[in-house]
């Protein structure tokens, strides 16, 4: 059952600065074919102290070894709830590396980059079709920036209507970026408790004329569809507010339900979740935003439009919230997402959502006899267990660390905060039944180990490159860079 053999060499590797040897070179620089000149001495810096000097071989070995200490989706199952760690197709990588996409400067006249603009225009259109929104911006760099853009647009809409509102309603199950993004717009956050899903009554109790918006996640972070969402959107709209949806969990909904159809006014996408672009060890992501008609005037600039004489970047938007970052968006990531949509087609995306939901429910069915399931409503693409019932003072953290010894990346832990010791599992659709069975067998074995040999959990992991790390010391005496001596 152990998929970690404990054999084979995992080589250690010091820091670049520790390996550095004065005089080594790893570069090849263009020949100087013009006269050599240098600036005034008074402006010039001393050499960069302790910058490394390495050969190309040093560098290649260094990073090759570092890579062997990592675990990626290509290594095995990565069931992180709310992260949608689906397979990253290799054709996306080939497409993104086409020189006609990598070698183009953003300030090149638009007429000379019609292929790139057409790709962006098509992606805008396709994301619009998937979500039911008439307009899309591809500019935001990631989900959090998309949220910020969405909340800015909401505020701009209110101000254009002569309204000064100060509050945003956010459920207690929301991702931390939701309240953080609202705060950046100068809003006060009103947290509302959700018992599984939100109720119209709970929202009505806090909705008033000072509330600018409600932020929801649908399906929510418990993996449940917000069944009252239409009624909730209506009641928010009746009081003059707007509804923002965090699109992190769109993977359960493609071809099933479209937020734009059910009353949502604005939503961000996470291309690095639903649309298979790689997580890259932390990024880059991409957070396009879809908006209802009423918010179109406020979209960030620029976005792509199609005119008679070709595709253009539209800058002329007098009510726009402005730009979120330089240039037009994470084009390299947009290429990958578009390639994915082309590869899947409409039916394929719907099938992906169906199988993502099937996979999560299969895991739930296999585990709910042993692991505590606080919410009995129908799960969608992710399932959340709690740590109730774990024996011998074992906690979710210990289960997670023991999973590492068995060769799996742990699920999301301790989120959402409303579940005690949450263990949030999202397998995604790219995992086979065989993989899921092996994973469930392991989780059941770990629950058993908690009863009979809990120290296996508490000492875990023992098979990774390092054992549990002292995070307290890291925070008390932060050492955030290498220094000589």
């Amino acid at each position: 059952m152990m998929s970690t053999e404990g054999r084979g060499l995992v080589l250690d590797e010091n820091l670049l600065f520790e390996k550095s040897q004065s005089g080594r070179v790893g570069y090849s620089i263009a020949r100087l074919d013009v006269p050599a000149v240098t600036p005034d001495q008074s402006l010039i810096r001393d050499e960069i102290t302790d910058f490394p000097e390495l050969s190309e071989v040093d560098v290649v070995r260094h990073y090759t070894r570092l890579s062997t200490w990592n675990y990626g989706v290509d290594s095995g199952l990565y069931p992180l709830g709310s992260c949608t760690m689906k397979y990253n197709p290799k054709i996306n990588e080939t497409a993104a590396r086409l020189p006609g996409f990598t070698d183009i400067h953003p300030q090149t006249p638009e007429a000379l980059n019609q292929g790139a603009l057409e790709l962006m225009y098509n992606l805008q259109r396709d994301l619009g079709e998937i979500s039911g929104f008439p307009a899309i911006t591809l500019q935001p760099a990631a989900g959090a920036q998309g949220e910020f853009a969405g909340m800015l647009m909401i505020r701009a809409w209110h101000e254009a209507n002569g309204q000064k509102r100060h509050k945003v309603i956010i459920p207690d199950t929301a991702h931390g970026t939701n309240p953080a993004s609202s705060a950046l717009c100068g809003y006060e956050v009103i947290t509302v408790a959700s018992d599984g899903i939100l109720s119209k009554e709970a929202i009505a109790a806090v909705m008033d004329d000072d509330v600018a918006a409600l932020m929801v996640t649908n399906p929510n972070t418990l993996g449940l569809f917000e069944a009252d969402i239409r009624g909730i959107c209506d009641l928010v709209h009746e009081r003059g507010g707007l509804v923002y949806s965090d699109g992190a969990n769109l993977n359960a909904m493609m071809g099933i339900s479209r937020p734009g159809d059910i009353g949502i006014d604005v939503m961000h996408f996470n291309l690095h979740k639903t649309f298979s672009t790689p997580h890259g060890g932390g990024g880059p992501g991409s957070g396009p935003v879809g908006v209802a008609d009423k918010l179109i005037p406020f979209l960030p600039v620029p976005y792509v439009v199609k005119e008679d004489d070709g595709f253009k970047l539209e800058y002329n938007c007098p009510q726009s919230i402005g730009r979120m970052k330089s240039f037009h968006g994470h084009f390299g990531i947009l290429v990958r997402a578009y390639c994915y949509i082309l590869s899947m087609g409409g039916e394929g995306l719907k099938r992906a959502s169906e199988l993502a939901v099937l996979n999560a429910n299969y895991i739930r069915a296999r585990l709910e006899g042993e692991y505590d399931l606080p919410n009995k409503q129908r799960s969608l693409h992710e399932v959340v267990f709690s740590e109730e019932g774990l024996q011998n003072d074992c906690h979710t953290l210990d289960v997670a660390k023991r999973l590492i010894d068995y060769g799996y990346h742990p699920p999301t832990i301790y989120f959402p905060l409303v579940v005690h010791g949450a263990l949030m599992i999202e397998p995604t659709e790219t995992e086979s039944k065989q993989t899921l069975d092996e994973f469930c067998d392991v989780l059941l074995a770990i629950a058993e180990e908690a009863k009979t040999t809990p120290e296996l959990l508490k000492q875990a992991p023992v098979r990774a490159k390092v054992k549990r790390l002292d995070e307290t010391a890291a925070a008390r005496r932060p050492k955030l860079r290498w220094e000589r001596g």
Partner: protein
Amino acid sequence: MNFPEELKYTEDHEWVLVEDAVVTIGISDFAQDQLGDIVFVELPEVGDTLEEGKTFGVVESVKAVSDVYAPVSGEVVEINEELPDAPEAVNNSPYEDGWMIKIKLSDPAQLDSLMNATVYQEFVEKD
């Protein structure tokens, strides 16, 4: 678990040591135990005015933050300069080395609403 007799306590788990018009404030043994390893303490500045019931600082553990609330109103006259570099003092010695601030009381009557050690211990243990 320690509940020194000479101190007064709040429901938010702060303690108060009364020495005439100046009181010393920190968090209780129960609080530090709940928080786990404390990695950082954010304190107000000398001269700041605090209002009873409002937050005056933050205690951070690795994965969580907790607000600390002023048990009484007054002006901050001294802060524990050692704490930023040695936050573990709050874990190891919550009532002595882990003291946080000293304030000059603006309304001594507020002390009457605080709990004594016995009442606080009951409050903690009934949870």
